[in-house]
């Protein structure tokens, strides 16, 4: 029996984490941890930090190694078996393009963010948790690159994802979200990412969407997704712990924490608009609708979480009611936007087929036939005439979330929602009350936002025409962008499925090229 097996879990945890700390003798603590105070959070006793998972570094390596072994054997099997041919439909691959360009770089950002936060916390408990999380996030981005690199051999749009993440208009939505969190202090960062994002929101991406990936035959993606989410379970408990710790340390922390929860819930919810469309439109075989997932993971589960936190004086995040009002329109409004602007996107869009529209009608009985089906039918009729329509007017963006102003009034799905604020003689525009409030609280931060449309008009993105901007994005016109119907991806897919004639017709009809 080895030494550590004789210790019980609590003692072992004590030895392997808390006992690694020391009191500084020749430097002041405030010089070593200079960012602990400026956010206004009061901490009296770092030892009161309770670690819900008593995971020590030796156990961490052991279990992570086992997860990696399982994951890589599945990725290998998927590649050897030409798994890409067994997905339901090549349209599905477009969800992975969005994932690799939009989500994977966030994993890397999280790796950096937690390394920074861990360095700034004055207690060994959160230092160790942040360190493990930082390593986890590096693992996530690596496994995602490895998994998706297989698809890069067969499909367009995967070739330069980090470059695109830093430049392409809609990818500024996830990028600015993380930049916003990383440029805050350590307590706000952890509240933003571990609690508001990971505990309250990312389950929607990593559970129903990943389950959907499995349903569509993509064993490789579901495996990296679930493997990442198993680490997230630790991160979520870290998020909950950091909230409880701040709230228990000093009552002056309560309003600050509530404000951060309000802000980051709304920021995260707006970011998840992309996930809503991945679930409702980009999975050829669907597991559940965005609306059902929102009800399950936010309204029910999030509701239970906030009832639990009520004893600390914490209430549901501000504007959560708006998210409930929007649940029957969100995915449709967002997918329509990409249909408009797909000539400048690194993935293909399409009009859902009749069976899919029927599914949407069933899942969205109050909105789909009334507001969205006629729009898709109109677009389809244009395409049938050989006039696939793209919108060449650049949209106004929300100054906070950077999404085009496409959302509608909470109580009226037929009127676009516009809000604005004046600051130092300039007018700033917002998609919602939630985004306006965030700006109004920290205008000096958000006036600096790098808004893709403004940047294009200012001449900072390669030029003023679409082809110049696409080149600056490293996007190949006619290959990576535009409608799926006349794409190389579709032509290849048909060829691989033995439908050579249809593939030829598709290639000839490439209005994209």
């Amino acid at each position, binding site marked *: 029996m080895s030494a550590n097996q004789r210790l*019980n*879990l*609590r003692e072992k945890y004590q030895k392997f984490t808390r006992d690694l700390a020391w009191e500084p003798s020749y430097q002041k603590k405030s010089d070593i941890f200079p960012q602990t105070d400026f956010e206004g959070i009061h901490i009296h006793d770092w030892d009161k930090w309770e670690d*819900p*998972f*008593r*995971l020590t570094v030796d*156990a961490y390596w052991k*279990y992570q190694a*086992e*997860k990696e072994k*399982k994951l890589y054997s599945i990725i290998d099997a998927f590649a050897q078996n030409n798994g890409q041919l067994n997905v339901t439909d090549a349209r599905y691959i477009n969800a992975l393009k969005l994932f690799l360009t939009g989500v994977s770089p966030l994993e890397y950002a999280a790796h950096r963010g937690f390394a920074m936060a861990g360095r700034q916390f004055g207690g060994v408990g959160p230092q160790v948790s942040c360190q493990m999380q930082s390593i986890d996030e590096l693992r996530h981005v690596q496994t995602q690159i490895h998994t998706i690199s297989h698809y890069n051999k067969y499909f367009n749009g995967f070739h330069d994802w980090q470059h695109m993440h830093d430049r392409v208009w809609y990818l500024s939505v996830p990028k600015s979200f993380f930049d916003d969190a990383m440029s805050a202090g350590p307590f706000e960062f952890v509240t933003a990412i571990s609690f508001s994002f990971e*505990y309250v929101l990312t*389950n929607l991406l*990593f*559970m*129903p969407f*990943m*389950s*959907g990936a*499995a*349903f569509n035959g993509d064993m490789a993606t*579901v495996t990296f997704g*679930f493997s990442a*989410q*198993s680490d*997230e*379970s*630790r991160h*979520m*408990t870290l998020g*909950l712990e950091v909230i409880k710790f701040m709230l228990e340390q000093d009552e002056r922390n309560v309003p600050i924490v509530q404000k951060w929860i309000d802000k980051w819930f709304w920021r995260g919810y707006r970011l998840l608009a992309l996930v809503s469309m991945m679930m409702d439109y980009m999975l050829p075989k669907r*597991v559940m609708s965005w609306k059902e997932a929102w009800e399950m993971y936010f309204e*029910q*589960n999030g*509701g*239970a*979480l906030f*009832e*639990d936190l*009520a*004893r600390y004086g914490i209430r549901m995040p501000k504007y959560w009611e708006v998210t409930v009002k929007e649940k029957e329109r969100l995915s449709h409004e967002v997918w329509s936007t990409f249909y408009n602007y797909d000539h400048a996107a690194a993935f293909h869009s399409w009009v859902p087929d009749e069976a899919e529209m029927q599914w949407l009608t069933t899942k969205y009985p109050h909105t789909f036939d009334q507001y969205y089906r006629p729009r898709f039918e109109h677009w389809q009729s244009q395409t049938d005439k050989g006039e696939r329509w793209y919108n060449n007017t650049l949209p106004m963006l929300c100054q906070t979330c950077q999404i085009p102003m496409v959302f509608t009034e909470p109580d009226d799905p037929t009127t676009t929602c516009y809000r604005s604020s004046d600051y130092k003689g300039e007018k700033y525009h917002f998609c919602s009350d939630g985004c306006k409030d965030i700006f109004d609280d920290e205008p000096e931060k958000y006036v600096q936002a790098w808004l893709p449309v403004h940047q294009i008009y200012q001449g900072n993105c390669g030029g003023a025409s679409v082809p110049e901007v696409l080149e600056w994005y490293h996007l190949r016109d006619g290959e990576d962008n535009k409608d799926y119907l006349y794409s190389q991806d579709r032509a290849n897919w048909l060829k691989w499925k033995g439908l050579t004639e249809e593939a030829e017709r598709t290639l000839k009809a490439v209005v994209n090229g």
Partner: protein
Amino acid sequence: MVNKNNNVYIALQNNEESRPLIEAIEHDNSDARVEFYPAMVKIDAPGRLVIRRETVEDLIGRDWDPQEIHINLISLSGNVIEDEDQFGLERAN
């Protein structure tokens, strides 16, 4: 809301290793509701849910460390209680 909403949940990969864990949860938590989705299983329970080491060991016929849960865990919600003999989730309210 009429009913108090205090559900906890655990989600596991739906694979061979999870099967005895699901069985152990059903055995020790009479209120647990098990739902299967593609590749995953989600188990909800009101207020509290526990996986006991002893129950799992009886089912698999070998020693089992509750931390092994990490390998097939997908997600969870609730306050975590963890020691040598169990892995549990609970709500304070």
